[in-house]
C-alpha cells in the first residue's frame, strides 16, 4: 500500500512543465515594421515587379478580445489594397505561420496581393498577440480571437462573406480552420491551407515513431485533421512534398483526406520544403493556382 501511495504522490506532485510556451517562435524582436526594408531572414524576396505603392499599404492596430479574455489586446495589422474598395473587393485574410512577425511574412503577403493581377484583391495580415509589435502573450485561443478581430474590421469596412477568402500557412492553418468551421464575425467563403498542421497527436507520433499522444508534451488543442471534417467551404490544399517539418503524408494528406465539403483541390509541390512552396512552384504558377481556385 505504501508503494501505491508513493506512486500516486509522484504522479500528483510531478512538475508542471509544458512545452506550450516554447511553441511560439518569437525569437526575432523588432521595434518597428520595416516591410521592404527588412533585411532579416525571409523565405524569398520579390523583385521590383511586385512593388506595392505606399498608398496601398496600411499599417494600423486592432483591439482583440476573445470570449476568454478579460481585457482587450492591441495587435498590429497590415492591409494591402484600397480600404475604400473593401466594400466591393475580394479580400484574402492571410494567417501567417509561427515564425517571428509580419516583416518575415511581408514578401508572402505582397505576393498574395498579386493574385489575379496587381492589387486585384485586398490582403489583410496581422501579428497575433505576442508576435511582432502586438501586445500580450500568444495563446491558442488568442490566435482565433486575433484573426476574428481582423475579420470584424473587414466587416466594418463593408466586406461580405462571399468575398472573404481565408488563407492559412503552417500554424496559421489553425485559425483558418477554426474560423471556417466555427465562424464568429464572418464566414469565409473559401479556405486555402498551405503546409497545414494536422494535430499535436500526429506530431507526437511522427516524432516518436510510436502511438504517443500529444498530451504528453502539450495542452494545445489544435486539431485541423478533425476540424476539417465539418468544413463545407471549397478547399485548396498546397503542400511541399519535401516538407521536413510538417510531413506531407502524415499532416497534409490527413487534412486533405478528412475534408468532406463540396469541393477540394490538392497541389503537391515537388522539391518544396516547408517555406519553399511559392518559390518552388514559381511565383506565377503559385498565383495562377490561387487565382483559379478563388475564381471557381
Amino acid at each position: 500500500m505504501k508503494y501505491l501511495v508513493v506512486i500516486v504522490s509522484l504522479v500528483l506532485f510531478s512538475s508542471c512543465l509544458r512545452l506550450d510556451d516554447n511553441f511560439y517562435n518569437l525569437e526575432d524582436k523588432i521595434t518597428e515594421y520595416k516591410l521592404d526594408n527588412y533585411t532579416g531572414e525571409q523565405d524569398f524576396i520579390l523583385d521590383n515587379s511586385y512593388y506595392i505603392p505606399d498608398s496601398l499599404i496600411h499599417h494600423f492596430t486592432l483591439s482583440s478580445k476573445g470570449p476568454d479574455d478579460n481585457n482587450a489586446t492591441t495587435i498590429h495589422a497590415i492591409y494591402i489594397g484600397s480600404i475604400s474598395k473593401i466594400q466591393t473587393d475580394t479580400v484574402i485574410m492571410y494567417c501567417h505561420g509561427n515564425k517571428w512577425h509580419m516583416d518575415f511574412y511581408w514578401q508572402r503577403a505582397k505576393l498574395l496581393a498579386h493574385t489575379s493581377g496587381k492589387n486585384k484583391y485586398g490582403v489583410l495580415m496581422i501579428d497575433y498577440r505576442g508576435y511582432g509589435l502586438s501586445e500580450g502573450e500568444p495563446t491558442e485561443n488568442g490566435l482565433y480571437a486575433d484573426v476574428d478581430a481582423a475579420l470584424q474590421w473587414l466587416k466594418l469596412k463593408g466586406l461580405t462573406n462571399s468575398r472573404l477568402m481565408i488563407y492559412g500557412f503552417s500554424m496559421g492553418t489553425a485559425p483558418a480552420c477554426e474560423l471556417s468551421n466555427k465562424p464568429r464575425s464572418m464566414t469565409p467563403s473559401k479556405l486555402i491551407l498551405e503546409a497545414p498542421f494536422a494535430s499535436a497527436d500526429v506530431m507526437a507520433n511522427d516524432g516518436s515513431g510510436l502511438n504517443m499522444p500529444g498530451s504528453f508534451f502539450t495542452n494545445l488543442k489544435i486539431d485541423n485533421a478533425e476540424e476539417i471534417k465539418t468544413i463545407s467551404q471549397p478547399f485548396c490544399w498546397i503542400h511541399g512534398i519535401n516538407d521536413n517539418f510538417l510531413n506531407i503524408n502524415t499532416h497534409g494528406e490527413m487534412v486533405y483526406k478528412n475534408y468532406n465539403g463540396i469541393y477540394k483541390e490538392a497541389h503537391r509541390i515537388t522539391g518544396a520544403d516547408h517555406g519553399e512552396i511559392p518559390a518552388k512552384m514559381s511565383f506565377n504558377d503559385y498565383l495562377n493556382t490561387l487565382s483559379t481556385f478563388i475564381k471557381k
Partner: protein
Amino acid sequence: MLRLFAIVVFIGIIFQNCAPTRFVKPLAKNQNAISANLGGPLIHFGNAVTPIPFTSFMYGRGIANSTTAFASIHTTAMLFGNFQTDIGVCQRLYKHDSLKFGITVNPAVNMVYDKWNKNFRAWPQLDVNIYKDILKDKAFLYIGLTNWFELSAKKAHNETQKNHALINPHIGMTYNTKKWGYTLECKFLQMNKKNIPNVVDYVGIQQKGAVGIYLNFTRRF
C-alpha cells in the same frame, strides 16, 4: 511551428532513450542495486558538444543468479507532468566461462501516464546485449540493441500504424569496484530520421538521428 515539430521530435527521443540499458549482466541472487542515470542525445552548444542531461533512477534485485528484476522512475518525463516507469528483468541467456562472454536480454514494459489528459500508454521494450569481460573481470564491454515495440494497430486519427519496432544500436562499457559500477554507453538514436534542419542541433551520423551518451552510477548492496 517548425519549432514545435523540433521539440516534439526532441521529446520523442527523450521518452524512448533517457537511460542506458538497465542491466547488461544480472546481479547475484538477493543482491540489490540502485542506480542513477544521466545523459541523452549530444547537441552542439556554442562551440562545445554536450549530452542533454536527462535523468532517471532505478532499483534492481537479483531474484536468481541469472535473473534480475528492475523498476525505474524517469525524472525528466516527470518534469513534464508524465509519470513514466519501465519495469522488467535482465535474463542471462548464455555464458561462456573460459571465453568470458555472455548474452543477456532485458524484456521490459515502459509505461507513461500523463496527469493532464489522463492518457496512458505502454510499450514493450527488449534490449539484447552481448558482453565480454575484460581487465580481470573488473570491467566488461558490451554491444546491443535497444528495441521498442508499438503494439497498437492504429495511431493518431485512426490511421494504420505501419512501424511496430524501433531499433537503436548501442555500445558501452562498465567498470566495477566492490560496491559501485560505472557505465558509459553510446546509442545511435532514431537512426532512420533526418535530423536537419532542426532547432536542436543534434550530433548525428550523416545528418540522421542523434548520438546519445549516457552515464550510469550503480551502488550494489
